[in-house]
């Protein structure tokens, strides 16, 4: 079972490496490349602790083979922002949206993908969007608060960038 050469662009840096075909993307990122932000929690595509963005979409890195990701752009929590100051990263702190923090990188990467599609979600929609991310500590309420608050911030930032007018509603 020969190794395969692949190219992964992780957080903007291109890497060339050889992997066994069976190696899961999450292990390539963690063990071979040192991006330990994505965590392994359940191995059954349930908990979402391993969530990264692949070509801009949130995916569970425990259910992608590294060879399948050949040529892809991967963003891990380490690359979400320069200084850990993405509005979601800030809101999770402000709203106490994490306790042990193990699920948090995956939770934030999913939420970041979601808010791009749906900048103004209601609480129930946020809960549905986070269905693939299990948190055992927080009871989710403060996570929902965090995502809601980040959405407002991002909305305000966008509006400021567009000339300072905040639009009401809209998807």
């Amino acid at each position: 079972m020969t190794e395969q050469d692949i190219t992964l662009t992780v957080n903007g840096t291109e890497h060339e490496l050889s992997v066994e075909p069976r190696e899961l993307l999450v292990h390539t990122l963690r063990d071979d490349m040192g991006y330990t932000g994505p965590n392994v929690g359940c191995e059954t595509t349930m908990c979402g602790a391993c969530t990264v963005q692949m070509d801009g979409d949130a995916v569970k890195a425990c259910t992608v083979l590294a060879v399948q990701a050949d040529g892809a752009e991967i963003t891990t929590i380490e690359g979400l922002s320069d200084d850990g100051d993405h509005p979601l990263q800030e809101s999770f702190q402000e709203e106490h949206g994490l306790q042990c923090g193990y699920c948090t990188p995956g939770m934030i990467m999913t939420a970041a993908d979601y808010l791009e599609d749906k900048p103004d979600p209601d609480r129930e929609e946020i809960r549905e969007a986070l269905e693939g991310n299990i948190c055992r500590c927080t009871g989710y309420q403060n996570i929902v608060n965090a995502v809601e608050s980040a959405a407002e911030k991002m909305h305000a930032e966008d509006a400021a960038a567009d000339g300072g007018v905040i639009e009401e509603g809209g998807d």
Partner: protein
Amino acid sequence: MATEETDHEDGVQSIDPDDVDTEDILGSAIERREDPALVSGEAEYTDDIQKPEMTHMAMVRSQYAHAEIEEVDTSAAEEMDGVVAVYTADDLDVPGNLPVGWLLDSLEQVNHPILAGDRVRYQGDAVAIVVAEERYQAHDAADAVDVEYERLDAVAHPGEALDDDAPVIHEEAGSNQAFDWEIGDQEATKQAFEEAETTVSLDLHNQLLIPNAIEPRATVADYHPRTDELELDMTSQNPHVHRLLMSGVIDHPEHKLSIRAPEVGGGFGSKIHHYADEALTALAAKDLERPVKWTATRTETYITDAQGRGHETTGEMALDEDGNITGLRVHTKANMGAYLSTFAPSIPTYLYATLLSGQYEIPTIYCTVEGAFTNVPPVDAYRGAGRPEASYVVERLVRQAAREVDMDPAEFRRQNFVPGDAFPYETPVAMAYDSGDYQKTLDRAKEMLNYEEFRERQEQAREDGRYLGVGLSAYIEACGIAPSELVGELGAQAGLWESSVVRFQPSGTVTVYVGTSGHGQGHDTTYAQIVADKLGVDYDDIEVEEGDTDEIPQGMGTYGSRSAAVGGGAIVESAEKVIEKGRKIAAHQLEADPEDVEFENGEYQVAGAPDRSVTIQDVAGASYLAHDIPDDMEPGLEATSFFDPENFVFPFGMHAAIVEVDPDTGEIEFEEYVAVDDVGNQINPKIVEGQIHGGIAQGIGQALYESAEYDDNAQLTTGSMQDYAVPKSSHIPEIKTASTVTESPHNPLGVKGVGEAGTIAAPQAVVNAVVDALEPFDVDHIDMPLTNERVWRAINENGGEH
């Protein structure tokens, strides 16, 4: 004792610590200092650790829950790529058994080897271990180990295990009875039942749960042969306890063993215990003289992490003609699993039956508990540990009793509560409640629910064929288990104090070393808040160190909601000692009598002379400079304390749920969930709220979704998150919280503990609500988890609406 109320139905607002003055920091909902590393992926968990030359270990676990091992053939595995070593019980000269740290008079102490040699007693029993260069190779090779078994009959449930014809799991014990234990007054209770106007009885099954910390257990062991130092990074809630126990298990001197808990991804009890796996990792590293990493797969955590609950109980309540509770009688068969885990014997005994008085004045209580060995993983502390089981029994019986005597359940509770002026209150089951005001949490919860209005709505809805119900749960918790002398009398093989060091650096910054070991509770933040308040030092100038046996002199760890009450107490004592020493130095510098020097907001001041003052930071500098300190004084400014509280603390509260049940499908929808908790003084209300939310989610998980299910052969059939339902975001309702504050007199902070409150309170709030909704169908009880099918069956059992 005064009770204050805090209303935060819309949630606690957090504050940037930079916006809080030092004098206001204790009690402020500041953001956590732990978080920047956690939200950016910078935090280091055990499996993140890489070491040069590191190897990986995988376990060969039993295919059967109960079997004789006939042969273990490791030859194929040894030949595989990258395999460094394969060990079976024959290859490892293991000096010790896994110990049990709480003894009872009747306890059968059975052997618990770290690798099974002749018999496996549950699926998690490891038969061999494989060490390889790469993670995947280790698992490949573990699959290639060929084990021949002679399967034996197995048993998963305590009632069945205690039957005469059950397969005996430990022949040395003679039967599956691990212990037979009682508390309370049998005769008086019997009499109470004989004289009762009314009695109610329920058979209650408190199902086995899998803790499911999202981070699986893991260990990285590294041995230095030249110095004989063995270093472990591991997922631990209590590194010092692990060090003490492991030094015996693997026969390595305690002072040459260091254990560090890096970032730990949740525990809920499951990372307290001393398991075989961590010891095996250590032994392999020692033997190979190379670092070894072991990380459990989720499947492994499901069959090895100590599980929780597992009670089969018959509870009876006696009542007089006025609806007063006159007696309580409980018999419980408790699942202990295949072996006795670290603190297992204490959970269904002292942590359970002593709470059976709940919030009520009950003249007499008698409880017997039989512990049973079964072929499931060891059962030990899981969030709440005994107390949720007790609360469940009491609150289910109270609901049933209120129905039987035809009283509203809220009024029934009010009538039977321990009155506010009765504290400290001695229960018939050996507890002395510190303080409480139970009426107040009930009143607040009723107000938040619009209780009276709800009852009208419920009536109306029933006429429209809709079934709403309200469930109350008046819970009490005992945490900060202490003092050591008492727990020693009860069988604990350890003290339950906590230790701390508060140390000034010469420049005036402070490091706090404390023996608790947080894993998500925000200790760095709350402890720094305590110290900032006590010493008047800026919050940012305080560092907190936890979870490392090399740095922290001693400790007992984090579990049982003890960190604030016991660890916090230890920190306050050390801070006070530092202040006292500083006072002498300040007096010396200010040329005053120490008795005339007052300390406030970080400054020593001569009484009545505001211009004669010196800051504690300056005093710290002087103490290390040591050029001019009192003659009989050693240099330096630090202090060590071992705090051993005089008693437990007793948080309490009222949780309540309003649900709607669809009789067609058995589906349950939450309309409201309110939580009014009294956890004493709150160091950081935002963190308190977070603990409450998380606890409730686990309690709702038990009520509605979670259950470790075993088949007739004691094989786990909920073996992954695809089958075991850990609640997801859409399963948990929006929670409204409020709190009252009744200080505890048993520790200097007046705190009570909050980590387990929600988990203790929630299950019976939900079950009571569903039973209330189904009153027209004559449903008395449904066992947890209330799956849609169980609810639907209960509705149809009595032939529909009555």
